[in-house]
Every structure is written in structure tokens, then in C-alpha cells.
């Protein structure tokens, strides 16, 4: 009898443990799902607030009515979009109402400015504070904020808080309210061109190269890796464009290089190794970059940007049109150079391999005073090719404008029609 009771107790304990484990697993899964959903909601709202503040910045940049039309419309549309996002956020009702009203006022004002019912000067004056408020709110909701990016914080601050207050909330419905949206002004490098240029690699007309030829090219381009262990594979049969994948390993260095099968052009190269704490000067780095570019034969390019990071410099280059010295960003390439000794760590020539077809275009003189607000100073100008909404490469004035409180912007104005093609804020 005693034995029987023990069996029952043991069975009950096992059943309880299994049940408990199941419930715990379900709770964890639910917690993960809700935390993901809320992180998405908060991050999306944060991203949209930044986009909205950038659009507001653009309304401060211009005084020309036509140039102002698009950013004002963006503000009107985005403020409505962000309002929708905020309404579904797991924050208390009072806070969301205050912010929704605030955004409503911004959107309505933008619409009235566009219709000419509010003077542009008045709008520009009031928006200087508004943009600060939006950035500050965005920071609070960002995935990167102090406790953000941690599941416990999301769960404790939003999931539990909201679940306790509104048990009957339909969680699934929350995710549906955040709509994907497209901005009218993509920054330069986010262009569709990048993607299209990758796809266009399938149309390369050059003749195919063999594995042995690729190996020779690799050793010629990277002579310091001639003794490396090299393993070359071909792209899978269904790959959008055929290429060779070269994996190498030499001592502390490990990496890859991809070459097109047609023509054996270098697509990209990346190397990983440990780093010393020493740092070469920016001057030395630039000299080395120039030497690398010459040795690879990329002599028609100009360095347009470089950024120092903790182990390497990242450099961006653009091809230069010999006719008019204009930059062709769509024919860009990138280098990664080690800070400790200037070694080439990476090269990305995917967009450079096939050159853009550039047509002739008139250059009509422009008066920047008619376009830009008086609060901005024109600091630099040059010519550059960028794509318009129809994805055509257009010769444009590239203008660097500066305002100490609002920031530095780079604007591209069609050199013939004077249409604003792109505007981006620079860090």
C-alpha cells in the first residue's frame, strides 16, 4: 500500500513537472513573441520619428516654393503615419494622446504652409524646437536606449504593463497597424541603382575565365597571399550571375574574394585578422589607399568619403567623368584599410564593374539664393551624377549647405531643370 502511494506521488510529481515545463515554455514563447512585437513597434516608431525630423530639416533648408513642396508633403504624410504607429504602441493613453495631438499640429501646419495659409518663415521658426522634441522622443524608444535591446526591459516595461492594464487587448492586431512606407527621398547609397547594378552583373559580355585563371588573378592582385591555402568554388547553378568564390587562409589571416566568371572581375574581398593597438596617420592611410587603387587599375576614381573606426578605415570612391569632372556615385567602390599598419582588409567593386551609360545634358546656371533659405550658408559645390525618380542618371549640382543648429546637408539639384533630386543630412 505504502509502495502504491509512493508510485502515485511520484507520478503526480512527474506530471506536475511536465505540466510546469510546458507552461513555462509556452510563457517564454509568448514573452518572446510579445517582446519582438513591441520592439518592432517601438523601433519602427523611433525610425519614423527620425525620418519625420529629417523631413522637417529639409523644410528649413529651402525657401523656393517648388523645392519646399515635397518635404512639406513628406511632413504631412509622415506625421499621420507616425500618429498611427503611436496609437498602437504599448504606452499609457495620456502620453500617446499628447504626442498624437502634437504630431497632428505639425502635420496640419505643414499642409497649411503648402497651401500658402501660413508664412514659411513662421513655420521655420516654430519647427526649430519641434525637430529637437522629435529626436528626443525617438531616442527614448530606440532599440539602443540604455535598457532597450534587452528582453527583460521590454517585457517589464511594456508587455507586463500593457497586459495588466488591458487584458482583453488583441495582441495580434497590433502588428498590423504599422504599415511599410516608402520615402520620396532615398539617401544616395540606398538607391535602387545599387540593387539593379548587382542584378545587371548577369549581362556581362566578357568571355568566361577558368578556375586556374582566377587563381592567377588572385595571386597577382594579392601577392602577399600567394602562399595562402586557397579553396575555390563556383557559384551554384541557379545563382543570378556566375562567379568564383575564393576562400583563403594564411596564418592569422582568413577571408574570401569573389570574382565574376565572365571576365574574372574582382567583385569583393574581405580579410579578418587580429589587430594591434598602433594607429597609422590619416595621411599615410590616404597614400596607401591611393597606391592600392592604382595597383588594381581603378585610376578613374576619386575618394569621396572616409570614416575611421576602432580597427579600420572605411573609404568610399566614385568614378569621375573625364568630360566635366563630375562624380558618378553609381559607379562607386569601397576600401577597408587596417588602422594598425595600413593593410588592405577589404575591397568592394560590385557597382564599379559595369559603368553607367551617361548621356549629354545641358548645364543651366543656377541662383542658390532662390532655392535655399537665408539661414543656410553654401559651403561647397561641384557636379555629380545622381538618379532621378525615373532611375535615370542626371547631371546635378551637388551643394553642401550649413546651418550650425540644424546641421549640414548635401543637396543634388538637376543641372538642367533645377529639380531637387535628393537631399541628405550629413553626420
Amino acid at each position, binding site marked *: 500500500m505504502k509502495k502504491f502511494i509512493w508510485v502515485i506521488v511520484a507520478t503526480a510529481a512527474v506530471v506536475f513537472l511536465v505540466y510546469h515545463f510546458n507552461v513555462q515554455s509556452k510563457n*517564454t514563447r509568448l*514573452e*518572446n513573441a510579445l*517582446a*519582438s*512585437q513591441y*520592439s518592432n513597434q517601438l*523601433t*519602427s516608431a*523611433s*525610425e519614423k520619428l527620425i525620418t519625420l525630423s529629417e523631413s522637417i530639416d529639409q523644410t528649413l533648408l529651402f525657401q523656393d516654393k517648388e523645392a519646399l513642396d515635397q518635404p512639406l508633403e513628406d511632413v504631412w504624410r509622415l506625421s499621420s503615419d507616425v500618429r498611427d504607429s503611436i496609437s498602437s504602441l504599448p504606452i499609457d493613453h495620456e502620453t500617446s494622446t499628447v504626442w498624437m495631438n502634437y504630431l497632428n499640429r505639425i502635420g496640419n501646419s505643414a499642409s497649411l504652409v503648402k497651401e500658402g495659409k501660413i508664412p514659411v518663415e513662421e513655420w521655420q521658426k516654430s519647427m526649430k524646437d519641434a525637430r529637437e522634441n522629435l529626436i528626443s522622443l525617438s*531616442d527614448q524608444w*530606440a*532599440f*539602443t*536606449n*540604455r535598457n532597450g*535591446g534587452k*528582453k527583460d526591459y521590454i517585457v517589464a516595461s511594456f508587455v507586463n504593463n500593457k497586459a495588466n492594464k488591458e487584458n482583453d487587448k488583441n495582441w495580434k492586431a497590433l*502588428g498590423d497597424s504599422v504599415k*511599410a512606407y*516608402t520615402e520620396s527621398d532615398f*539617401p544616395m*547609397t540606398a538607391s*535602387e541603382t545599387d*540593387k539593379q547594378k548587382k*542584378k545587371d552583373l548577369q549581362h556581362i559580355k566578357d568571355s568566361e575565365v577558368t578556375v586556374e585563371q582566377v587563381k592567377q588573378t588572385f595571386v597577382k592582385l594579392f601577392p602577399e597571399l600567394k602562399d595562402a591555402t586557397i579553396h575555390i568554388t563556383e*557559384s551554384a*547553378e*541557379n*545563382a*543570378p550571375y556566375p*562567379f568564383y*568564390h575564393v*576562400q583563403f587562409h594564411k596564418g592569422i589571416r*582568413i577571408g574570401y574574394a*569573389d570574382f565574376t566568371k565572365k571576365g574574372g572581375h574582382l*567583385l*569583393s574581398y*574581405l580579410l579578418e585578422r587580429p589587430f594591434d593597438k598602433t*594607429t597609422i*596617420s*590619416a595621411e599615410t592611410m590616404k597614400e596607401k589607399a591611393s597606391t592600392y587603387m592604382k595597383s588594381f587599375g581603378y585610376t578613374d576614381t576619386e575618394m569621396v568619403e*572616409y*570614416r*575611421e*573606426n*576602432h*580597427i579600420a578605415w572605411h573609404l*568610399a570612391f566614385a568614378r569621375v567623368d573625364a568630360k566635366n569632372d563630375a562624380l558618378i556615385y553609381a559607379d562607386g567602390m*569601397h576600401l577597408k584599410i587596417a588602422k594598425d599598419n595600413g593593410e588592405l582588409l*577589404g575591397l568592394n567593386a*560590385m*557597382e564599379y564593374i559595369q559603368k553607367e551609360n551617361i548621356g549629354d545634358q545641358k548645364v543651366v546656371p543656377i541662383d542658390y539664393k532662390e532655392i535655399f533659405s537665408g539661414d543656410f550658408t553654401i559651403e561647397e559645390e561641384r557636379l555629380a551624377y545622381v538618379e532621378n525618380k525615373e532611375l535615370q542618371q542626371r547631371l546635378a549640382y551637388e551643394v553642401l549647405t*550649413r546651418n*550650425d543648429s540644424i546641421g*549640414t546637408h548635401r543637396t543634388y539639384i538637376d543641372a538642367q531643370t533645377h529639380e531637387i533630386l535628393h537631399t541628405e*543630412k*550629413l*553626420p
Partner: protein
Amino acid sequence: MKKLKYILISLIFCTASYAILQEEQPTQAFSTQIVERGAYGDDVIELQSRLQYTGFYTSQIDGKFGYNTYWALRNFQEKYGIPVDGLLGEDTKKKLVSVSEFNKEFVHEQIKKGNSFTTYGGQDLEKQVKNQQSESSNMQLPPKYSEKDLKLIANAVYGEARGEPYEGQVAVAAVILNRVEHPDFPNTISEVIFQPLAFTAVADGQIWLEPNERAKEAVLDALNGWDPTENAIYYFNPKTATSKWIWSRPQIKTIGQHIFCA
């Protein structure tokens, strides 16, 4: 009388030595390198702090030599009659040091703690620490991306591919970015990552793990344009994949444990 003379000479000597040391000591704080736009590190932190001390720089002290620092430096050079080139060279360093103070310990401590702070001259430094956090990583990104993007993708890469080779980690980050550009996927990074059933790390909670420096570096390379996948929008581990559909996707290449597909 003779004693007094010795005391006077000693005093003059000490004062002169002190003045010389005062003059020389701070210039040693900057490194000997010429610093320019695009740079990052301790020299830039000191430059921003000193420019802020003198009222020329009003933005965040983050060690990143961007346009705000550049214009502030040019304004400083113009005011003090130094050739206006936006470069932190020897003459500019000397002038900065002579007209400003820099409390290295205080500034680096605030940055380490992630505090929001300023270093304006004539005000108590402790009172310039604001009760809010400032967010700044040690990475400089292309203009189209934010530190929020970097953090989010690094979490995804670490959760999905921390055991993979470096190339494989860059590849996972590139797939996320390719999806943002692809018409079949959402248009923002967060929506791509948190799209239901898109990434295992989101479903099993591994996305919440703190990413290491290697994952962040891999994301940085992807944000700068590297795409080892040659334009893939899917990937899977053939040993663990349960979906039959994923095998129907056109495969591009294998990196580590993952097969990347179009």
C-alpha cells in the same frame, strides 16, 4: 641681503619653470598626428571638448570628427588668425591648448558611463552632466544608416550566426539589408528583422543576447556595402532546416553552415 637675493632668484626660476611646463604640458595631450574630418578617437574627444570650452562647438562630444566639429574648428581657426583648413595641426593644437582647459578624466568617465554632458568654460563641470543618457557607439556609419540600425542588425547577426566565420556574419547582415531593398519584404530594418517567422533568433529569443565586437564589425562591413552572398535574400542551415520550401529557392553559395539563396 645675499640670502634674499638667492630667494628672489630661486623664486623667479621656479615661476619661469612652472610657466614653461604649463605651456608645454597640455600640447602633449593631443597626439602628434594631424587630425581631420572622418577621424575618430581620443584626439577628437579632446578637440570637441576644447572647442566646446571656448563656445565654438555645441554638439555631443562623441569622438567622431563629423561636419559639426569641422565647422566649429574652422570658426575657431578664423577667429584666432590660423589658416582656415579644418585640420587639427600643430598651430591649431597649441592655440586650442592655450585658450581652453580639458579635464580628460572627467570627459572620458562621462563617455564611458554614457552620460549626456557638456564642457563649456566658466561653468562647473559637474553641473554640466545632464540626467539623461546619450547614445553613441564607437562606430562611424555611412550617412544613410543610424546607430540604431547597427545595434539592431548586430543583435540579429549575433543571435543567428555567432558561431559562423566572419564572412558568414557579414553575409547574414547583408541578407537583412538586401531584404530591406527587395520589394517582397518590408522597407525598414526593424520590420524585416521582426517579421513573423523570418528569423529563428527572434522566435527563440536569442536576438536579445548582447552582440560582441566581431558581430558589430561584420555589420559595419555590410552597412559599408560588402555583400559576400552576392545578393541573397534567404539563407538556411541544411542540417536543421525543417521547411521543404526553402530547398526550392535558387541557391547562390555556401558559407560556413549556411546556404544562401536568391
